[in-house]
């Protein structure tokens, strides 16, 4: 080392940059900057790749699904659109189908099945210009009761007990009741979901098996409840031999409620109808063919992953609903078979445990209610008889009187009994109502090119 002072070591000279490609040189001399000619596409960083990958897949799945839905729906609508263009005489009405939907078991929202119909089945009906009439059951068992009541009203009119309902103002082109029934018989009945199917069968069976006597159920319930020992007083013990057990205002009245009803000495109802008219018919006039629409309703916090899967698979439901509507519109039907009784049975697996355990829950609520009721009755009676003066709280917020307590009890009992009746129709594993007269009665809509069926009517009305 000849250097006496520390001098910076000589850095090796950087290698000269490689010459530009000829095409780059040409573009550069034309004025295109080097940033453009030297462009090298690079992938983003690993983290960005993950982010874009996940977001892109989710979005892609969603968008793909929804586009497929639209395609499917439009394809079915196109297949029936020619029916909407057919001319209709000025006094004629389009074909009108009846749609039955019910509150799904375990669900608070009672219109879910109706919304399902409107979303998946209705578009194709609208495209084919087929009118519909929705009957929704807002509580468990309500639809079955409605159907039974309608059938009983029809039977009463047919037996001559009730006059035929006639409109005050005759409208030109109005159909006679016979013509109306004929239209209904060929129109079609849409049933959304297995729960509706069970309620439908139950209602039809009840309607064709019940007696034609008008029954005021509220009145009967009120009388049955008044014979229960709940509102009795201790002095009645001697004069009331029917109540073997205690007549104190105590819960022991509760467990007797259900068997109590069964052992009621049935008062002979005054018959307003001659017995030869009040006959259960041996055969049922065939109703319109049924369209069985599968319905699925996933509930519960633990089922959220399944709900998410459904979110990305809407096309399946759209296809099922549109195909069902297409079958209805085309009108090809086959007779009902025993396999159809298990229609959509996988829906029953989705019922929540809370619904299937409804009777236990109701009996617990009942017990608690009657315990509280005893105290309230004593307070009400003491205050109304003036046995003791009201406390300050009772003056400011007067407790319910005995009349109110009875009315409240009646309402609660009505609700509990209706829920139990609905539960017995609907719970997982309960067999659908069946009647010997149902053999060879129902028909089911199937695809139009299926030779198994015979068309109820020709294509297009």
């Amino acid at each position, binding site marked *: 080392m000849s250097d006496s002072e520390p001098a910076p070591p000589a850095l090796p000279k950087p290698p000269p940059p490689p010459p530009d490609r000829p095409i780059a040189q040409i573009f550069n001399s034309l004025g295109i900057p080097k940033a453009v000619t030297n462009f090298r596409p690079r992938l983003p960083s690993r983290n960005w790749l993950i982010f874009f990958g996940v977001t892109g897949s989710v979005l892609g799945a969603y968008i793909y699904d929804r586009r497929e839905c639209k395609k499917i729906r439009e394809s079915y609508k196109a297949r029936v659109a020619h029916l909407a263009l057919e001319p209709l005489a000025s006094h004629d009405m389009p074909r009108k189908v009846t749609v039955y939907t019910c509150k799904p078991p375990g669900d608070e929202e009672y219109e879910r099945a109706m919304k399902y119909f409107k979303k998946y089945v209705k578009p194709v009906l609208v495209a084919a210009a087929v009118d519909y009439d929705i009957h929704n059951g807002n509580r468990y068992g309500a639809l079955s009761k409605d159907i039974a009541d309608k059938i009983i009203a029809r039977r009463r009119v047919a037996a001559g007990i009730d006059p035929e309902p006639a409109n005050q103002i005759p409208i030109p082109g109005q159909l006679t009741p016979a013509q109306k029934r004929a239209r209904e018989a060929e129109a079609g009945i849409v049933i959304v979901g297995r729960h509706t199917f069970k309620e439908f069968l139950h209602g039809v069976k009840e309607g064709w098996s019940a007696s034609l006597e008008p029954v005021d159920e*509220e*009145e009967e319930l*009120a*009388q049955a*409840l*008044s*014979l229960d020992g709940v*509102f009795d007083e201790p002095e009645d013990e001697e004069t009331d031999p029917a109540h073997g057990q205690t007549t104190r205002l105590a819960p022991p009245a509760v467990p007797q409620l259900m068997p109590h009803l069964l052992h009621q000495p049935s008062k002979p109802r005054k018959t307003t109808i001659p017995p030869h008219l009040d006959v259960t018919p041996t055969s049922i006039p065939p109703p319109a063919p049924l369209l069985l629409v599968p319905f699925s309703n996933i509930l519960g916090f633990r089922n959220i992953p399944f709900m998410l899967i459904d979110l990305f698979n809407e096309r399946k439901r759209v296809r099922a609903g549109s195909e069902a509507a297409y079958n209805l519109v085309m009108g090809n039907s086959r007779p009902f078979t025993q396999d159809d009784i298990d229609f959509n049975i996988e829906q029953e697996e989705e019922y929540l445990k809370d619904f299937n355990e409804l009777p236990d829950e109701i009996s617990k609520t009942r017990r608690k209610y009657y315990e509280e009721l005893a105290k309230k009755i004593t307070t009400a009676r003491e205050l109304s008889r003036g046995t003791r003066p009201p406390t300050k709280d009772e003056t400011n917020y007067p407790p319910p009187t*005995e*009349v109110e307590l*009875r*009315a409240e009890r*009646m309402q609660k009992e009505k609700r509990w009994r209706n829920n139990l009746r609905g539960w017995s129709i609907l719970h997982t594993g309960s067999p659908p109502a069946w009647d010997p007269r149902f053999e060879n009665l129902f028909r089911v809509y199937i695809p139009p090119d299926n030779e198994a069926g015979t068309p109820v009517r020709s294509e297009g009305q």
Partner: protein
Amino acid sequence: MDFSQYSPAEQAQLQRVIEKKQMTDFIKLYSGIVERCFNACCNDFTSKTLSSKEETCVTNCADKFLKHAERVGARFAEQNAEAMKDAQAGSR
């Protein structure tokens, strides 16, 4: 009431007044019973018809009220008679 000091026309008029008063009293008694027995017996408006319990209650209420009225009338007449006897005995 003694009618000896009145002329027949006045007697007739008095008779009519008395009858009218009795009628009003009877009607008051009737509506009194109806109200009392209704308030006491009928507390359940969930049913349109009277239950058997309510019927027995109403029967008992009406019977007891009338018997009670009869009993009170009898006691009152007794007391009245005694008081008159004392007054007469005292005035002698």
